[in-house]
Each structure stands twice: as structure tokens, then as C-alpha cells.
């Protein structure tokens, strides 16, 4: 029952996202045609009525809205997100080319910062009031008040430019030929370290604080006292009793953190000229390549919604109280 409800809920959200995407160019001030053709809406290129009519017909913009909406949905279902103005290629293709880099970047960062944040938060709370806790709290609060792009820029300046430890940017050495796959992997890794570190440091604060708070309320819970009364060791209590309970709010908030992380990637990719979807979005924004901007919006949103759905399912699995309802 729970699953079906949730599934329906997420389908509705996806439908809403698709609709937002549909109405964006049509509801915004300016000429919708300009958004497809890529002119600056403030200074429309002069066009004869006839040309205009033709263009409108070409993009189906002359039809009534509901019909346009149906067309849009049909196109989407075929994976057609329109054509990029700048690249003259299907939007979908452009996104897919860049996708692997973003996945690599976000994936690596998530795999590290989530467990690390949870671990540090739990340890901090378990030692609450002690030096260790205060120190890590203040450090993490301070570090995470830097926006990712400021942090990333500083990293580039110090670790790449001044110390020369890492490349200045990009995902791999441009124009390099590799002797074997291992060499290629190492090169990619070398390029990956700074952006991933930036993402981790910029985003660990949220998870850390949440886990610490959640853990603090768990520590005061009666069942922890009850576990102590059984003679269990502190480590065992932390691992077996406390963490799982403390994780519940983390999973609920995973939705937000995943969203933040995805957005953070955009800034980090710009700083490091990392050729992922984020950089693509940035470039498209500069070029006012609206079909591409919309395509990326759609892509990221649906990705985040899916991640949410998974987090929700994980919650059901973690908390037996929910599945009964």
C-alpha cells in the first residue's frame, strides 16, 4: 500500500516537472519563438510576418496550447528534448556525452561524503561536550560556510597552481594518448581529486550536523539506557542501537542533500572546467541556449526525484513502523 502511494506521488511530481518545463518558455516574458531560435528576447531580430509564421509552424508553436502539450509529451516519450541552438545537435545527445563525467564526479563525492559525514556526526555526538566534539563542530561549521566555488577556486590556486600537485582543471589531459587503461584511469583520477574534495568539503556540513543532532536525541533515549543496563559495550551500543535510529532523519533529508549536491556540481564543474552536465548548463546559460537549458533542468530534476524515491524506499526498509501503515 505504502509503495503504491509513494509511486503515484512521485509520478505526479515528474508530471509536474514536465509541465513546468513545457510552460517555461511559453509563460516567460518575451517571444516564445525567441527561446527556440536563440535570439536575445530583448532585441528580436526583425522577421517578416511570413517568415515568422513559417518558423512558428515549424516548431508547432501556432497550434493551441493543449495540442502543443500533447505533442511535447509524445516527443518526450521518444526521448526527444529538442535541438540545441549552439551545437545544432539533439539535446539528449549532448547531455548523454557529458553525463558520465558528472556521474563520476557526483558519485565519487557522494560515496565519500555521506558515510564520512554520518561517521563524523555520530562520533561527535557520542563525545558530546568533549574537546573532540567541540573542535570538529567548529571546524566543520567554519569550512562549510565557504560556497563550493570559492573553496574550489582557492584549491585551484594553492594545490594546482602554487604547489602544482594537481592539474588546473578538465577531466583528463587534453590530447593525451594512453599506453594502457590503467594510465588513463590514473590520469582521470588525478583530475578528479580536487573537484571531488571541493564537493565533499562544501557539502559534508549538512550531513554532519544532521547526524550529530539526530544522534544527540538518540543518546538520550531510554532504549540506549536499556542497552547499557544489559551490559553491552559502548561501541556495540553505538553501532547496533544508536546509529540505525539516528539514520532515520538522515534518510528523510537525503532528498534535500542529493539536490544540494547536484547543484553544487554545477559550480564545481565551472571552477574546474570539468566537462560535465553542470558546465554544459553554465555554457548554455551564457549562450542562452534555451532548449539545452530546459533539457538539463529536466534531466537533473528527474534524477533527483528518482533519488528521492529510492531514499523513501530505504526509509521503509529502515523503519519497521512505517511499513505497517
Amino acid at each position: 500500500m505504502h509503495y503504491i502511494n509513494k509511486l503515484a506521488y512521485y509520478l505526479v511530481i515528474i508530471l509536474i516537472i514536465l509541465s513546468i518545463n513545457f510552460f517555461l518558455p511559453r509563460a516567460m516574458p518575451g517571444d516564445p519563438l525567441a527561446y527556440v531560435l536563440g535570439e536575445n528576447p530583448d532585441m528580436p531580430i526583425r522577421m517578416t510576418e511570413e517568415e515568422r509564421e513559417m518558423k512558428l509552424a515549424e516548431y508547432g508553436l501556432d497550434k493551441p496550447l493543449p495540442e502543443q502539450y500533447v505533442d511535447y509529451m509524445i516527443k518526450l516519450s521518444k526521448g526527444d528534448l529538442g535541438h540545441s541552438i549552439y551545437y545544432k545537435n539533439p539535446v539528449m545527445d549532448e547531455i548523454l556525452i557529458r553525463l558520465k563525467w558528472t556521474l563520476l564526479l557526483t558519485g565519487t563525492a557522494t560515496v565519500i561524503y555521506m558515510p564520512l559525514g554520518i561517521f563524523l556526526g555520530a562520533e561527535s555526538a557520542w563525545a558530546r561536550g568533549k574537546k573532540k566534539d567541540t573542535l570538529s563542530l567548529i571546524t566543520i561549521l567554519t569550512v562549510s560556510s565557504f560556497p563550493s566555488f570559492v573553496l574550489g577556486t582557492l584549491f585551484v590556486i594553492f594545490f594546482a597552481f602554487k604547489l602544482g600537485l594537481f592539474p588546473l582543471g578538465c577531466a583528463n589531459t587534453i590530447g593525451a594518448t594512453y599506453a594502457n587503461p590503467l594510465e588513463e584511469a590514473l590520469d582521470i583520477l588525478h583530475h578528479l581529486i580536487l573537484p571531488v574534495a571541493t564537493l565533499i568539503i562544501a557539502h559534508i556540513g549538512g550531513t554532519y550536523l544532521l547526524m550529530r543532532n539526530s544522534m544527540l536525541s538518540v543518546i538520550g533515549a531510554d532504549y540506549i539506557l536499556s542497552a547499557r543496563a544489559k551490559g553491552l559495550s559502548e561501541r556495540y551500543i553505538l553501532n547496533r542501537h544508536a546509529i540505525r535510529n539516528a539514520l532515520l532523519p538522515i534518510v528523510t533529508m537525503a532528498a534535500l542533500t542529493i539536490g544540494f549536491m547536484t547543484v553544487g556540481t554545477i559550480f564545481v564543474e565551472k571552477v574546474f572546467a570539468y566537462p560535465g552536465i553542470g558546465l554544459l548548463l553554465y555554457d548554455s546559460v551564457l549562450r542562452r541556449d534555451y532548449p539545452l537549458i530546459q533539457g538539463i533542468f529536466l534531466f537533473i530534476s528527474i534524477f533527483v526525484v528518482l533519488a528521492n524515491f529510492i531514499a523513501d524506499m530505504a526509509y521503509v526498509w529502515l523503519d519497521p513502523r512505517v511499513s505497517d501503515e
Partner: protein
Amino acid sequence: MTGVKVNNVLGSLGLGILAILITVAIFAPQIAPYDPHDTYKWMERPSSEHLLGTNDVGNDILSEVIYGTRVSLFIAFTVSITAIIIGTALGLIAGYSSGVLGFLIMRIVDIFLTIPRMVLIIVLAAFLTQSIWNLIVIFIIFGWMMTARIVRSEVLTLRSQYYVDSAKMLGGSDRYIIWRHILPNVVPLVVVQFIMEASHVIIAEAGISFLGLGDPVARSWGTIFNYAFEYPNIILSDAWMWWMLPPGLCIAATVLGLTFVGYALEERLNPKLKTVVGMEA
């Protein structure tokens, strides 16, 4: 005990930082040595005339950053105050009425919180003309949801308190109960939420401006940072030190100040530092 002390230190530190920044923002014309739009020799190194040098078009960077404080804080506080008021009002309605309207509000909140709002903000900003007012409106539209959710759940708790039943029984109207019994108990929570939202907006605005979507006339810290970042080979010279670092540090300091104050407030409202486990109250 130490927890309380740390809180006070962090709280005062945060308040101090914010006080300085707010003073700078208010008295920007008096403090700034030059008009940020006046042009002098471009790309000057710091000197007694231009403490932080000049930028690529010859604006005095220090003055630019001082005026940038105004822009950044103005956006942050305007957005968070408005968003908090909207969020609190809708949260109160959703929590207190619990009818169809409340249900609808909460569904909208859920949906908005699931969609990555920053991406949508970037896309909207790309469609609209670059101005701080457009940014403010967009941030408000996407800024009230968390408050609404938190306020609603608090109202639900408060509503089940016997003193609300008592007020009803003593003859209080719904309006009386909301104003007299519910709202005052929600306020502390809302204040914390206001601070959190302000720091979100500071970061978000800086990010949007870093992508080149900020107002080119009223330049915020993010915009200044972005112009510096876009300047060719900035890191090869030393210019990053006086051109990039100051706005970057200002953003971080503001967020830090807000975080410290918010953290100290939250801990005070919600003391989890129980002295003795299992002690009877």
C-alpha cells in the same frame, strides 16, 4: 556545562560578525572611499589610494565590496523576511485548519521540496532579465516551503496541547487562539528558520551570480567574484588576492555568522544536554 559555554561564545561571535557586516551595509556610502562605478586606472595593485586595488574597468575594489555588502545583505534579508512570513502564515493555516486547504498546501510544499529548487532558479534566472528584483522574487517563490513545513508540524503539536483546548473552552475564537496561544510559541522556531533561510539565500545568490546571472549594475559579492574569476589568467597574477579573496571571504563570513547565531539559538531552544540520564524531572 561546556556545551552551554561553547554556545554562548559561538553565538556572540556570530552576532559580532553580523553586526559589523550590517553596519557596513547601512553606512556603505560613508565608509566606501569611492563610488563603485567611478573608474580609475585599471588593474592597479593595492596602494594607499586604492587599498584593494582596482578591477579590469578601473573600479575601486574596496568600494565595490563595501557596496556589494549592501546588495548581498539586502537580497538575503528581504527574501528571508518575506519568505518566512509567507511560510509561517501558510504553515499556520495548514496546521490549524487541517482541512482540504491544509492538505493542498502541504502537498505543494512536498513537491517543491522534492524538485531541486536551485536548478529551477538557475533556469528561471536564465529566462528573465538580470536584476536583483527578479532574483528576489524567484528566491521568495522558492524560499517559504521549509518554514511552512516546520511551522505546520509545530502547530500540530501545539494544537494538541490542553491549553489550546482550554482557550477554546474558555470562549476564545480561532483567531484569538492563533494569535495568543499558537503564534507566540511558534516564534522562536521561526527566528531560527529566518537565520537559516538568510544563509541559504546568501549562498544561493552568490552561486547564481557566480554563474553570471547576477545584476550587472548592483553588484553583489558573487558578481564581483565572478567578474574576477572570468578575468583571463587571474590566478597567474597576484590579483586574485585582492580581487577574488575579499568578496569570497565576505560570503563565507556572513554564512558563518548566521550559522553560529542560528546554531546557538537552536541549542538554547532545544537543550539536548541532559545532565543526568533517567533523572526524574
